[in-house]
């Protein structure tokens, strides 16, 4: 029903207004045509009037020419005569021009044209006559000139004048005819317009009634629609309010998330920085380990050198010991000699005792030998003491050397252990450094990720905000819609058809 209603309405609307428009157009065309005709008639009338005027002017000019001729005829002054001649010539030219114009105009009036041609012929003869007259005047034959004037020129002119008058009358008739035509045209136009207008008015009135009926139907539909609109708007409003709340919550959550992400980012940054500093420390430790290794190496070398020195010392001590032993042997030998001397002395003393008185000198000698032997013994005893001391010192030195050697050995072992420890430490530090590098990298990646998340979050936040704004706008729109519905209702009610 609706569709057919719609199509019908459209067609009817088009039809109705179309008709009116067509009517108006027709009326306009008609009016236009009438006006055109009237205009043409007017133009014709004006042309004829113009023609009349031109002819009159021609007449006047010819009169003037005649006067001039007369003046020339009676003029005695050559200067004045020339002047007048010039005037004549000039005027003649002008007259020729105006005649040609008139001829042009007469093209549309063949009858009159024919008459005009005749006039032209006559005029030509008249002008020839004038020329003759001029020559006569120049020759001084005034009397002949005057005679010509009176006998030829006069009548000619009269003829011309009569013909012109004829033409004038013709044109006057034409004018009248035109006038009558104009009047009739005007009348018919009036009638047509009135009839047309009345038709249009009738059409309009029919259309108005039909449109009112249609509008009433439409308004009913609109009212229904408005009601539905109102309800829908309310529902939309409710939904939108809910969405708005949801969007606000989302926005809050996003804010919190953004803050959390910022914190994470800060932590990641700190971790990265710490990792960086740890890396630096690891590097330092590594360098220190390297130095330590070098130091250990140097220590070991030093120990080796000390060992070598120790060995040299030991060799010296051994040599010393041997020398000591040699000395000991020698002193032993000396001691033996002393012993033997002693025994010898004792034997000598015994022999001396056996010899009695004779042996007294020998006994003294024996005693001296004994003393010598004793001194030797004492000396050897001292030397032995010294040797003993030396031996003790050598022993001490050997012990010290041995202890030194042991200490060097221990030191070497310790140094080697230190070296190993440093090696382990260095490896550990290197591992730690690598781990730190990995931490740093992952931390960097974390931060890069955060950097990516932050703008994304920003986008989400903006989108959410826009969402909120959008929902608010929707809210406003729904509200407006609702109001619109209300307004429409009011308007519809006002628009009571």
């Amino acid at each position: 029903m609706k569709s057919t209603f719609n199509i019908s309405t459209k067609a009817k609307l088009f039809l109705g207004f179309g008709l009116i428009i067509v009517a108006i157009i027709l009326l306009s065309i008609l009016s236009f045509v009438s006006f055109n005709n009237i205009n043409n008639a007017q133009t014709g009338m004006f042309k004829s009037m113009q023609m009349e005027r031109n002819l009159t002017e021609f007449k006047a000019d010819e009169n003037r020419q005649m006067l001039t001729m007369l003046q020339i005829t009676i003029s005695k002054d050559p200067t004045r005569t020339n002047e007048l001649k010039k005037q004549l010539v000039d005027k003649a030219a002008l007259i020729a021009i105006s005649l040609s114009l008139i001829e042009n105009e007469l093209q549309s009036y063949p009858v009159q044209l024919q008459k005009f041609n005749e006039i032209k012929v006559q005029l030509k003869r008249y002008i020839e006559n004038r020329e003759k007259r001029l020559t006569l005047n120049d020759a001084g034959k005034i009397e002949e000139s005057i005679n010509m004037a009176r006998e030829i020129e006069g009548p000619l002119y009269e003829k011309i004048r009569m013909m012109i008058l004829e033409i004038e009358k013709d044109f006057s008739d034409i004018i009248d005819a035109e006038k009558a035509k104009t009047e009739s045209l005007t009348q018919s136009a009036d009638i047509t317009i009135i009839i047309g207008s009345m038709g249009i008015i009738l059409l309009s009135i029919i259309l108005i009634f039909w449109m009112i009926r249609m509008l009433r139907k439409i308004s009913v539909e609109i009212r229904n629609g408005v009601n539905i609109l109102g309800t829908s708007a309310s529902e939309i409003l409710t939904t939108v309010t809910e969405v708005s709340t949801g969007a606000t919550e989302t926005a809050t959550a996003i804010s919190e998330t953004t803050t959390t992400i910022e914190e994470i980012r800060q932590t990641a940054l700190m971790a990265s920085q710490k990792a960086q500093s740890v890396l630096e420390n690891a590097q330092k430790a590594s360098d220190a380990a390297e130095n330590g290794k070098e130091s250990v190496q140097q220590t070991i070398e030093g120990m080796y050198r000390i060992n070598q020195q120790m060995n040299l010392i030991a060799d010296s001590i051994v040599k010393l010991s041997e020398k000591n032993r040699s000395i000991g042997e020698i002193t032993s030998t000396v001691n033996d000699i002393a012993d033997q001397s002693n025994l010898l002395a004792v034997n000598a003393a015994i022999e001396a005792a056996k010899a009695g008185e004779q042996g007294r000198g020998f006994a003294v000698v024996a005693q001296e030998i004994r003393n010598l032997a004793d001194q030797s013994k004492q000396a050897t005893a001292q030397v032995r003491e010294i040797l003993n001391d030396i031996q003790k010192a050598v022993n001490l030195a050997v012990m010290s050397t041995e202890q030194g050697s042991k200490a060097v050995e221990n030191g070497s072992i310790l140094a080697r252990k230190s070296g190993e420890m440093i090696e382990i430490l260095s490896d550990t530090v290197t591992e730690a450094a690598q781990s730190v590098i990995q931490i740093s990298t992952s931390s960097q990646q974390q931060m890069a990720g955060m950097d990516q998340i932050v703008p994304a979050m920003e986008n989400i936040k903006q989108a959410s905000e826009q969402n909120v704004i959008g929902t608010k706008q929707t809210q406003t729109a729904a509200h407006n819609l609702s109001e619109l519905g209300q307004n429409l209702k009011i308007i519809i009610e006002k628009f009571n058809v």
Partner: protein
Amino acid sequence: MNLDQKILRARAKEISRHKIKQDDMAESLSVVEFLLIPERYGIESKYVSEVLSLREMTPIPGTPAFVAGVMNVRGKIVSILNLKLLFNLKERGITELNKIILVRMDRMEFGIVTDAIAGTLKVYPNTLSAPPANLHGINAEYIQGITPDGIILLNGENLLTNKTIIVNQK
């Protein structure tokens, strides 16, 4: 304190040695002093033929314990006696450091092992004192006396003529 001092002075006098004139040559004996640790012994030099250090002593099996062995002294085989075993002194072993005193009387000759030869000295018989009864188990017949210095003077004659020292190989 006066009494104590007196007593002490009396004791000092008793113990102190008397200075003997060295010019008194008539009664002096020339004694060879030797050591058998821990005691100092002496023997008259008239019995001593020689003093020498111990070298290459050959022990002889089947001989009494106090016979330490025999020694070649310039081509002569001399038996060596260990007085320590004879006198029942503590034996500390015989080394090259020990000295041998060759003692001789008539045809009896042997060497005695000593720890060291102290030298010769003059001993005046009138200064000799009698040996105490319990002197290290040495038979009293071998001891002639004790010098003021504490040297045990051996009776060389008794020592050389004692039958116990003669080893009968049969």
